[in-house]
């Protein structure tokens, strides 16, 4: 049984939006990390992860998201999330992501607040 995650990238003038679709587990988390690190290497310093098509995350996937946030903070940038399901929002709060990354209800609000 596989639950492959797909990631799409939309480059913006001042950053990028990553759209995820599917299960964020260890494999899915690594896929997000690969795309995020490519963008960081390309001097992107503001990254928005839109999780509208992700309904399940696990703690391993979240640990990888934390690593991505750490790397972005080290580079002086920031990562934000939007369009989380209630249970994923709750999970992010439990895991402490909400302390290091902004969370928005909608992409429009996020884009405006982040200046993307």
């Amino acid at each position, binding site marked *: *049984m*596989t*639950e492959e995650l797909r990631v799409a990238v939309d480059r913006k003038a001042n950053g990028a939006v990553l759209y995820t679709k599917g*299960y964020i*587990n260890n*494999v899915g988390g690594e896929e997000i990390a690969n795309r995020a690190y490519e963008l960081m290497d390309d001097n992107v310093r503001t990254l928005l992860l839109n999780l509208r098509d992700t*309904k*399940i*995350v*696990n*703690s*391993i996937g*979240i*640990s990888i998201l*934390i*690593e991505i*946030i*750490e790397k972005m*903070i080290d580079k002086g940038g920031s990562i934000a999330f939007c369009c989380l*399901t*209630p*249970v994923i929002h*709750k*999970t992010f709060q*439990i*895991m*402490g992501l909400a*302390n*290091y990354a902004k969370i928005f209800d909608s992409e429009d609000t996020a884009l405006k607040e982040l200046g993307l």
Partner: protein
Amino acid sequence: MTSTAERQMELTLPMVADIEIAAARAAGNLARELGMSSEKIDEMTHAIIEACINAREHSGCEDNRIYLRFVGTSQGDGSRIDVWITDHGRGFDPDEARSRRPAVGATHKRGRGLQLIEAHMDEVSISTSSGGGTTIHMVKYEKKNHD
């Protein structure tokens, strides 16, 4: 409180990648049959996923199996689902597992599954012993005030 209906399901699953999704879907289907809300179901399925991952990643069991039992009960004031997830592995220390804090800046970022399980379920009890395996029993209520 009068129990009006009970549904049961037992599964034995191999410890392979993403098998936790099969367990979560089975429990989710049972919960939907009971009329449980999507938010409660999502919380329960995330807890089941973490319990199965813990069994697969940390139990070190020789039979390479996860044993699951779901019991759904419709009651006069709502419904409840009892979930038992068992492995025949080495056991673990729940207090040590609860003490982990994989946040930004921490050296170890993994190992917060138990906290998630306890946050997403209404009741959680753990039976574990060194070399004697582990059973996590967790309960989700449709109504928080069930008494």
